């Protein structure tokens, strides 16, 4: 046990998944329904290899313009990325024998807005993303810096943010009789909708509690801060993933953020266009292969991937063109989505690591930085193995 993590458990999982890759695959899911101006998200049962992890979490998200604003999708996304960065750090420290006193991650990003304060350029995704990491631990600066570099390569949500990726989106129209028709929605590059006049700043402030549990407070400014109590979230892993089930995990938070953005966006768009959708639901899902995350198999992606959404609308519409209308609306809504753009684009993040007494590291995390660091690790591993073989020892 170190930092509240069962590190023997981590090691055993690594061995198990090396021999049996099927146990490494985890599928997360959320289901979201629009109720008034809220998107109510229920985290679904996750499948981890050959067993299931039941989940018991519900979150309500709103847009920034809601009368009684709550957590907004961009805040949830910042929390999801930050939580993953934080938990991956805890794993890294624990495996290296570094005991933590405290760990905080502050995630900030901006979103360009038009003169009316609405998102001006969804294609930009989240801009100016940065992590300010503050660690208090007994370890050399070099060791602390190395863990952060590892995290930039292996944190699944950070990599989902960093890498150009794709997602799968389809729309389903359900009619009163229960008949449903499904359409795939093309992944389209969003376009700027209006000239940028200002920007929203999103902040997620994460504090490590113990183990994989982190407490998160978030903010968006300017605009809604004065109108609400700052929401506090708890993010944690399931007990099967060495947490204690205190909250949704970072991948579930990411699905929550994107599903809510889609659901709220579609609801607003349908209202604007006068399309009478009586029910809007979004099912989200994604896949994690922890062989990639733990660098067990270089061919496996470290990032959270195979992200997919099914948007389901109920409407009292009957003829074929209405299917097209709904699919077109979902397509437009996807094109207006800041968070889907994040998944699609290659992004960069500025990382700054500090301890109470010192600046330890600043780096710009992007595809080139990640591949250079991974190459360096692989080279070191080969050298270690060769040295061990020369010494007649058991190569690690």
């Amino acid at each position, binding site marked *: 046990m170190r930092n509240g993590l069962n590190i023997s458990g981590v*090691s055993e999982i690594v061995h198990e998944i090396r021999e049996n890759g099927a146990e490494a695959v985890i599928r997360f899911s959320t289901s979201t329904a629009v109720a008034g101006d809220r998107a109510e998200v229920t985290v679904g049962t996750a499948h981890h290899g050959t067993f299931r992890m*039941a989940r018991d979490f519900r979150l309500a998200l709103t847009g920034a313009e809601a009368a009684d604003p709550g957590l907004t999708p961009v805040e949830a996304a910042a929390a999801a990325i930050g939580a993953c960065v934080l938990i991956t750090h805890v794993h890294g420290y624990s495996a290296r024998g570094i005991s933590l006193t405290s760990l905080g991650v502050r995630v900030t990003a901006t979103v360009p807005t038009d003169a009316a304060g609405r998102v001006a350029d969804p294609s930009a995704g989240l801009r100016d993303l940065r992590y300010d990491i503050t660690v208090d631990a007994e370890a050399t600066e070099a060791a602390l810096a190395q863990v952060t570099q590892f995290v930039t390569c292996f944190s699944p949500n950070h990599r989902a943010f960093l890498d150009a990726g794709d997602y799968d989106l389809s729309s389903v129209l359900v009619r009163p009789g229960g008949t449903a028709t499904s359409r795939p929605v093309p992944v389209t590059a969003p376009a700027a909708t209006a000239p940028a006049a200002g920007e929203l700043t999103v902040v997620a402030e994460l504090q490590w509690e113990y183990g994989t549990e982190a407490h998160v407070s978030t903010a968006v400014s300017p605009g809604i801060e004065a109108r609400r109590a700052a929401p506090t979230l708890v993010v944690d892993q399931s007990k099967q993933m060495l947490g204690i089930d205190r909250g949704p995990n970072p991948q579930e938070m990411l699905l929550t953020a994107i599903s809510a953005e889609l659901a709220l966006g579609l609801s607003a768009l349908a209202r604007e266009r006068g399309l009478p959708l009586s029910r809007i639901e979004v099912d989200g899902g994604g896949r994690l292969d922890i062989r990639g995350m733990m660098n067990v198999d270089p061919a496996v992606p470290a990032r959270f991937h195979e992200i997919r959404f099914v948007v389901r609308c109920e409407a009292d519409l009957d003829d074929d063109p209405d299917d097209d209308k709904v699919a077109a609306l979902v397509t437009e809504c996807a094109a207006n989505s800041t968070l889907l753009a994040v998944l699609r684009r290659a992004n960069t993040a500025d990382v700054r690591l500090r301890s109470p007494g010192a600046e330890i590291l600043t780096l710009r995390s992007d595809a080139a930085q990640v591949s250079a660091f991974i190459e360096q690790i692989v080279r070191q591993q080969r050298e270690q193995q060769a040295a061990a073989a020369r010494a007649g020892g058991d190569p690690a």
Partner: protein
Amino acid sequence: MSKAIGDPAGPGADRKWSNNLRRGRVPGPRLPEQRVMDDDLGMSTRSVHSGTYIDPATGSVGTPIFTSSTYEFNEHTYGAFDQGHIRDVPIYGRYGTPNQWVVQEKVAALENAESAVAFASGMAAITTALLTLTNRGGHIVSSRDVYGGTYNLLREDMPQFGRDVTFTDPTDIREIEAAVRPETQVLFFETLTNPLLKSIPLPELGELARRENLLLVIDNTFLTPYCLRPLDLGAHVVIHSATKYLGGHSDLTAGVAAGSRKYMDRIWTELLKLGGSLDAFGCFLLERGLKTLAVRMRTHIENANLLAAFLNEHPRVTAVHHPSLSGYPYPRLREWCATGFGGMVSFEVEGGDEAALKFLDRLTIPAVATSLGGVESLVSLPFNTSHSFLTVRQRRELGIQPGLVRLSVGIEDSADLITDIDTALTGI
């Protein structure tokens, strides 16, 4: 204390994170002084020898009782604390002691399992295993035919812990399949139900669990590994009230869970918190009892088969429930239970519960008591004991008719048991 076998160095100062996590799962926990028998040896050989601790100082052929509740720290203990593998080093009574490891090794060998955990009762094993293998918000599919204590846990407490439970007919795979929900995590059943000895479709349950990523937890108390090894048929965890056949002498309350090291480690972690660990004397009694499991079970089975056949012909008996009889409704059990069906027989006495009560009064050999699986025959009526918490209608629904007698056939001479029962029945 010497170094435990399951104590390979974990990741450490000189071992870097990436690709260097050195510790995989190992069988055990066990000490180097413990005997590990080959898998291809027979039941009796394994039950006598597996796990025995051979004391290096004295050469004693049996395991000594280590009454100590705590163990001196050394580099291995410190290493285990540092690296997290504290299940593999003797530290503290509740965490794991040589006597627990001995008896766990024996049960694991008998159930073809990698690892086992000993508990202070069968209920401690069940509670701990079910809470371990589910999360808040999860769902368990089980049956109303399970042991009453288990039923109460499932009905009264699991929902309070945030685990929902659906009770199904345990013989009906369709009904069980239909009860599975997205959040279902565990299927929990007994290999042979109490008191009617209904058999569950075990291979199909194993297949369902595999297909749906569910964990199949099987209470094998009634059949014991001598008759059936559920892990071979797809179960993930097998549980016993070791109070019964495994202990075998009605002088011990204990439980065990067995399965892969992965699930046993998780169950053990929960045991540390819930606290139902088995003390050294209990372990010793269980180890001693297990040594004769095979020889006892052979006699239990033989006696039960003879009594079932005898009762089936008796004019005062209106029905007999036993897998050896031709009318047994679940004949497929014989496909996976080749060595017999344990020592339980239940039957209905003409004249209902009143007649059954008279019958008990007239018996001279079997003791009228609850429980089962001891060397002595025990007899009881479900209506006023194990199933008294059910309404008359609920009992009917389960198939419990007035006059039902539950007999745990002991290892006495079968002729004496038959004479005694015949006399008691005839005189009602």
